[in-house]
């Protein structure tokens, strides 16, 4: 049977990006690993949502036990390869390294994790076998990190897994949405395929639940369901001129150049609306793709920006500018966007009367959030959706027996590592449910 997944195009605009944290050689990794203090009950381990035993995997690099090092990582987080690249380590493990308190550079945990996991992929090391067949079958909606982590854990426990993905690509945002200076699309696909290597996980691409298969049919065919839908489309601003060509949602734009080639040769000025991490990713990407003037427009102050300060700092180094305390009230142009009208806001984010101004813009990226698509399952009896996210208990169980959720659709949009942790936790809860031990 032919692989139903469409292979990625070779010629993609994201190829222009180089890694902002390049791979370590073994010599570099050993030097860095040797520096690790090997803390007891280490804070880095607690700071990781998947609780990777960081001191142990680093010690193994130092002792040239790379195979064991990667095993320590994957045992906690099967998506350790992508997390090593995309995790905001500065605010998680690296941010909690005790060397910070010594006024000493913290251990580069992400780069060490990348070293070990890349080695495992390159060497073809495989660690896991599916558990004895239980005869139970679980459907997973969406082929992103949460579902992949969940499916893998289910296979370890002997349950069959079927991933239903409406797109042709697998890997979810790891394939279509990660800033390419962190990771490119092929790595997302590669990781997904590596996870599927455990065997017994069927992926059905081009299948949308509710359209191609009904919920009733789903419940008939499967013993449990995991919802790993992620988030919906970019949120619109709802201002005049938003429909003009050149005004586009950030996530949609990122996907365009990650999966294909885009022509920005005519773009002189780009505005990025928003102050979160997607906005910051867009800033760096727009600059790297060659747009001369890149300006972020955020309604709050620099200090109040929800995006990571270290990412903004790195973007500024690359010549990014910002309009703080401003918001677009209209986009204008002949046949395509040419200008944005910005309204200055006060400290309470209220418009200051008369304080509007116009700036040039031939590309506008809206990075003010993504629709929360919990409502896709919100109509089901027993599944509560609050503020667009699926409500579950601590283990991912919804109010509908056999239905679990994890990842962005549950947490409202966090990191890959959160999705990995939630997917795995849900699998453990599903396993208990299937064995009749569920607290539900």
């Amino acid at each position, binding site marked *: 049977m032919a692989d139903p997944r469409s292979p990625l195009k070779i010629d993609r605009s994201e190829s222009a990006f180089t890694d902002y944290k390049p791979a370590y050689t073994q010599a570099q990794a*050993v*030097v860095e690993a*040797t*520096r690790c*203090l*090997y*803390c*007891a*009950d*280490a*804070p880095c381990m*607690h*700071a990781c949502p998947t609780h990777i035993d960081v001191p142990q995997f680093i010690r193994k690099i*130092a002792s040239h036990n790379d195979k064991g090092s990667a095993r320590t990582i994957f045992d906690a987080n099967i998506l350790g390869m992508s997390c090593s690249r995309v995790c905001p380590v500065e605010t998680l493990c690296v941010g*909690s390294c*005790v*060397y910070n*308190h*010594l006024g000493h550079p913290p251990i580069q945990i992400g780069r060490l994790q990348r070293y070990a996991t890349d080695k495992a992929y390159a060497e073809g090391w495989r660690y896991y076998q599916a558990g004895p067949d239980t005869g139970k079958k679980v459907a997973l909606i969406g082929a992103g990190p949460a579902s992949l982590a969940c499916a893998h854990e289910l296979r370890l426990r002997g349950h069959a897994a079927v991933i239903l993905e409406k797109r042709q690509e697998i890997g979810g945002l790891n394939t279509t949405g990660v800033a390419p200076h962190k990771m490119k699309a092929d790595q997302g696909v590669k990781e997904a395929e590596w996870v599927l290597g455990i065997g017994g996980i069927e992926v059905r691409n081009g299948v949308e639940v509710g359209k191609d298969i009904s919920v009733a049919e789903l419940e008939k065919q499967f013993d449990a369901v995991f919802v790993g839908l992620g988030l919906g489309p970019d949120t619109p601003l709802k201002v005049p001129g938003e429909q003009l060509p050149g005004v586009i949602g950030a996530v949609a734009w990122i996907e365009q150049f990650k999966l294909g080639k885009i022509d920005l040769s005519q773009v002189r000025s780009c505005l990025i609306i928003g102050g979160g991490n997607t906005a910051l990713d867009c800033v760096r990407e727009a600059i790297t793709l060659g747009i001369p003037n890149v300006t972020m427009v955020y309604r709050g102050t620099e200090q109040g920006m929800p995006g990571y300060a270290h990412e903004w700092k790195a973007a500024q180094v690359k010549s990014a500018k910002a309009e703080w305390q401003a918001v677009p009230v209209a986009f204008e142009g002949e046949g395509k966007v040419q200008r944005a009208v910005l309204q200055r806001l006060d400290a309470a984010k209220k418009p200051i009367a008369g304080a509007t101004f116009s700036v040039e813009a031939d590309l506008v990226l809206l990075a003010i959030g993504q629709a929360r698509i919990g409502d896709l399952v919100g109509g089901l009896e027993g599944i509560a959706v609050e503020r667009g996210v699926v409500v579950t208990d601590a283990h991912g169980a919804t109010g509908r027996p056999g239905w679990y959720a994890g990842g962005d659709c549950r947490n409202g949009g966090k990191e890959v590592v959160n999705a990995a942790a939630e997917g795995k936790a849900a699998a453990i809860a599903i396993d208990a449910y299937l064995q009749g031990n569920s607290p539900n």
Partner: protein
Amino acid sequence: MANLWTNCAGIQSPNPFWLASAPPTNSGEQIQRAFDAGWGGAVWKTLGQPIQNVSSRFGGHTIGGVRGAGFNNIELITDRPLDVNFREIAEVKKKFPKHAVIASLMVETEQEWEDIICRSVDAGADGLELNFGCPHGMCERGMGSAVGQEPLVNERITSWAKKYAEKYRPGLPVLIKLTPNVSDIVPHGLAAQRGGADGVSLINTIKSIVSVDIDRFVPEPRVGNLSTNGGYCGAAVKPIALHMLASLARDPRFNLPISGIGGVTNWRDAVEFILLGATSVQVCTEVMLKGYRIVEDMIDGLESYMDSKGFATIDQMVGKAIPNYEHWGDLDLNYEIVAKIDADKCIGCQLCVVACMDGAHQCIHPQEGSATERTTRVPRVDEAECVGCNLCKIVCPVPDCISMVQVDNGFAPATWNEHLYQGKQLRHRKGSHGW
């Protein structure tokens, strides 16, 4: 300003730092560069019947990322013709009359000893060092440590050397280089003293296998598919060297000057050797790893140290710590310290917690609270159970974060011997956890 001028057993040098007999003193060209760099003396690569060496020769022991923290070699004595070596000794002495050039010697028969001593004197050596220490290759031929391990042979050959030194240049100092491959160094130092030696040098290298190639199943250093035991040296051997040095220095029957050797890497190590009785200090491995240039810091650091402590000359320092080296039975059992953690300095690594829990007396505990906040990660010492072992302080990566503080327990000092023979009262044992 401290005066570093050194007189060790009658061998004078501008400072106490000598290069030990080894690859860094293989040739005149090297030694001239070493003297230019600041070394005060050099003990020439051991002279004897030139040998053929193997390839490879050295093995390194990497500890915690420090390459060559331990080091071993299976190289033998000089492989260069004797006339070349003696000609170069004469050249070096001509250019560096104030620096010490010591001829290290190793031959077998009395006649050979007379010949080589005569030639050393002719070349202008400032002293002789008899190599009774080499633990590999030469000992199988009845030389090196084979001599150093037999006090009677040591004494006899020392007396021959002294006799011919006196014959060819009266007063020429003779040092005996001792092997550490013995259970007690003292009888060997005394044998050299009885043989008439002017001083001893210690330690030579320790018999060792530095590592094993775990893919080939062959020890290192590998010669084809075989290896052999070698001599261990480098920073890792310093504690063994200090003990042997001090054992001899504190023995009331032994009264010769000592040239200290074994794991000296910097001025601090050198100071420790001098405080435990060395008059000069010899260095090899650290120079092999880092080059002659390390002596600049050694001189500079030693001068600053001496100035800060008020020592005007090396002699004032020699053996200063010897009176404070005693038998275990003479230590005060009622002296009590406990660990104190400076909460402001603590970075929360909890290495002290795991070390105390698994390796000591289970008296350092984590606090309740966040496992990621520095303040709640500062451990707590249960002083009632702390035995004052130092382990926490040793593993702590933060300078001066853990201090060992004396506790007044109300007990008068009492040693084990005083307890045993005079009935002095001892404090209660700690670390019992109520047992």
